[in-house]
């Protein structure tokens, strides 16, 4: 990619009175990247985005966009545009006037203006909507118009604050794909705020997982899912089984840990350092565990009893009780055969098995 720190957020904090909304965040975002800020409500995503837009200014720290410090640049002079959660379509203007709102200073001829607006309407697949009044638009159409309005002058950065939150599920999934395709075709850097982990995983090049004003991990969707670096991240993204464990030894990229009832395990290290005897957490995703009717030869398996089973059509969720472990273990299995009585029936005795590399070791205290 062209510029690895096209947007550079350097040690930025923001206080509202006594509330610290953003706490010493440093993030570099590359040019043309689809970057998501993911986190629960109230974790400071909007505040961070509004500082990029210039609606708020950092209490401390500095934001650079395209190499320029933004501390004295007002919103209307920044090379950014924004799509608001409620779309903020101007109610007194029609679709064409809304989309062309920012073109006023270009002093285009009427024909050029109409051509640009028409081009944007084609892009968002609403051709012929020029003269529609804003109140004649559906939720999805408003969302598209807001997008076209923000993109018409080709900003260097587009900020999106939960733009899909108000849409119903089907439309939202469709818009996720369209938005992603659109971003790739226009090549503009997107900073996308969402509290929906699936949405972030589907669309982003990289994701910053935030919590309480800080970010916990910045990574690609795959890395975040496969190699979370903390319990909070692992918990927030997808489902995760955690087991208390103790390190026996850790070297040459592998650790041997003692997981109580699960016995002794070996797991890969991910740039982590652990001392022998340290208390850690062993984490395994539900879909990385196989449910077996009979024990198979080899290690990495444990006997249990099915507690509850939930049939979800394409897959089933099981909770399996294991002696000596308090919480039942979650197991998710693809329903590859037609369902019938079988391994997953409640109270059946089963064996759980997993691959060595499926185990993630996390610090016990964060």
């Amino acid at each position, binding site marked *: 990619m062209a510029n690895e720190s096209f947007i550079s957020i350097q040690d930025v904090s923001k206080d509202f009175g006594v509330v610290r909304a953003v706490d010493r965040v440093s993030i570099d975002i590359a040019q043309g990247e689809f970057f998501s800020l993911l986190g629960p409500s109230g974790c400071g995503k909007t505040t961070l985005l509004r500082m990029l837009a210039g609606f708020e200014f950092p209490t401390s720290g500095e934001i650079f966009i395209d190499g320029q410090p933004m501390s004295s640049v007002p919103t*209307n002079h920044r090379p950014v545009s*924004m799509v*608001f959660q409620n779309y*903020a379509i*101007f109610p007194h203007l029609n679709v064409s006037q809304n989309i062309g*709102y920012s073109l*006023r200073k270009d002093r285009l001829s009427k024909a050029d203006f109409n051509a640009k607006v028409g081009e944007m309407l084609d892009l968002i697949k609403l051709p012929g909507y020029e003269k529609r009044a804003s109140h004649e638009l559906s939720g999805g159409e408003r969302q598209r118009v807001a997008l076209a309005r923000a993109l018409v002058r080709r900003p260097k950065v587009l900020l999106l604050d939960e733009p899909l939150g108000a849409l119903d599920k089907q439309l939202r999934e469709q818009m996720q794909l369209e938005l992603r395709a659109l971003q790739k075709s226009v090549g503009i850097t997107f900073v996308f705020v969402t509290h929906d982990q699936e949405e972030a995983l589907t669309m982003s090049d990289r994701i910053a997982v935030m919590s309480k004003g800080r970010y916990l991990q910045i990574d690609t969707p795959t890395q975040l899912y496969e190699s979370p670096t903390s319990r909070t991240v692992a918990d927030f993204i997808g489902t995760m089984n955690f087991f208390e464990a103790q390190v026996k030894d850790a070297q040459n990229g592998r650790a041997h840990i003692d997981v109580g009832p699960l016995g002794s395990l070996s797991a890969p290290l991910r740039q982590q350092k652990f001392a022998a005897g340290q208390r850690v957490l062993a984490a395994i995703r539900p879909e990385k565990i196989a449910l077996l009717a009979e024990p198979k030869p080899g290690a990495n398996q444990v006997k249990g009893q099915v507690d509850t089973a939930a049939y979800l059509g394409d897959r089933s969720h099981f909770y399996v009780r294991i002696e000596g472990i308090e919480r039942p273990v979650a197991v998710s299995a693809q329903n590859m055969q037609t369902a019938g009585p079988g391994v997953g029936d409640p109270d059946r005795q089963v064996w759980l098995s997993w691959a060595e590399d499926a185990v993630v070791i996390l610090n016990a205290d964060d």
Partner: protein
Amino acid sequence: MVDGTAPKAGSVSGAGTGRPGLLSWWRQLYLRSEGVRGYSLLSPTLLLMVFAIAVPLLLLFVASFWTQHLLDITPTFVFDNYLTFAEKDSYQKLLWRSLKISGFVTVLTLLLAYPMAYFIAFRIKQNKLMWIILITVPFWTSYLLRVFAWKIILGYNGVINSGLLTLGWIQAPLEFLLYNQFAVVLTLAHAWAAFAILPIYVSLEKIDRTLLEAATVLGDGPVMRFFRVTLPLSMPGVVAAALLVFIPTVGDYITPALLGGPKGLMIGNLIQLQFAKANNWPMGAALSVISLLAITLVVCAFLWFSKRVRTQNL
């Protein structure tokens, strides 16, 4: 009831539902038709409007075609009064001046009220209600008192003149302050300010703040944003304020009578004269009808114009 001993089948129905005739017919109509429900709710007001406004207006209209000589009113249908108005330049001038003064009052009031409403809507975060109450405080005293207060302020020996004399900035009292159109415009604008502030405030308060942020992020500075978003979206309030100020001030006669002097008289003073000293009620009625029509015309033109402004993209 003697014959009430015979048990009727199915007579368990609740009160009213079993009663045939007018009441159930009305009830059905009431429940089915939204229009009927609406008018029923309105009915007390509607009655009052019919008897206190529509009927008198109709009488006024009819009377404007009569003639009066001394104490004798001749109820025959003639256009004499309207012809008189067409012939008398002084009458036309008075109507024209009234519209002009009210126009100035409206513009001045809007110019004074808009910043005030804007301030309360956008800058005041707490205690907005207190600010609104403060704005209505002048209305706690009578209109007449407020007019007299301006007389004291603007008068020959008034506050302004004596103040400036004491400071030595002027040698003789300024005479252009009182008894002219300026004094009338100033006093009326002050008197009607609250009527303009409130509707403008309401329409500003309703504006979604993210629209302003959207305009900013799309490249507008504060001034451009005001003219392209805030002002158009507050137009309903501005229009309401303009009408609330313009319509009643055209017919005002207390302020011009007390502060206007001969050059500041308005159509209201002439109408009052016809009903009182001149003792020509039909002429007064005709002048009233004429000024009513004039106001209607101006208001229609204004509404048409403001609609154009609202839907225009700058």
